[in-house]
């Protein structure tokens, strides 16, 4: 049986969260990190050193696009916009995440099944 390496893919969780937030509308970097904080009840915060590389990966994959928009007279902000392929990718990531949590729950809820393995 092929071993699933989804447990190693912690980066995918950040991408999934970001894509999910972008489904509600275009956001800029600071706004994304604030929304992650707010939606998670301050339980999850994505450090900027992880946030932007995740956004770059999503951009390189064509899942999101970045647009410079003028805010006020001179200030420009980069807004991220989710593309249709990004929505599909998010569904895949959510499926992976659900499989992983099911697998972890199975481990946590095991009922003393060691007898079969004991020497």
């Amino acid at each position, binding site marked *: 049986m092929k071993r699933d390496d989804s447990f190693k893919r912690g*980066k995918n969780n950040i991408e999934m969260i970001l894509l999910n937030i972008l489904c509600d509308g275009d956001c*800029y*970097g*600071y*706004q994304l*990190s604030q929304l992650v904080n707010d939606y998670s009840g301050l339980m999850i915060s994505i*450090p*900027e*050193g*992880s946030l*932007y*590389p*995740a956004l*770059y990966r999503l951009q390189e994959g064509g899942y999101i696009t970045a647009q410079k928009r003028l805010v006020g007279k001179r*200030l420009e*902000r*980069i807004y991220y916009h989710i593309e249709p392929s990004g929505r599909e990718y998010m569904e895949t990531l959510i499926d992976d995440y659900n499989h992983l949590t099911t697998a972890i729950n199975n481990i946590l809820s095991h009922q003393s099944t060691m007898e079969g393995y004991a020497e």
Partner: protein
Amino acid sequence: MNPAAELFMRSVRASFPFFDKEEKRFYNDLYDNVRCYSNFHRNCTTDDLIEYYGEPKDIVMEYYSNVSTPNVYFELVKKARRVAVAMVIAIIMATLLFSMVIITEKLKFDSADNIIHHEETVTAEYERGK
């Protein structure tokens, strides 16, 4: 952006081992992020920024742990090579300069020995005439 935020960003800039296109892109995005924060917290201090974003070196380490590692490794090797080449060139230049100074001084010293400042010859005729 307030002076504390500017200072914080200078520390972040100084924490990068090298500053190529990718690092510049991240730095500019982080700069915008810090500017937004400082707009919402007008009187923020450097300590506030460190509390919110973390230490500058931690931000940079976090960034590198999220980008492809081989790229970082090769960039560091390239930087080490550039430093080594620069040092060899500097040593060669210093040796050449030192040699030129020594040769110039030696030539000056030798030419000073060859100049006849004053020569007095007392001839026998002069002695007899006297």
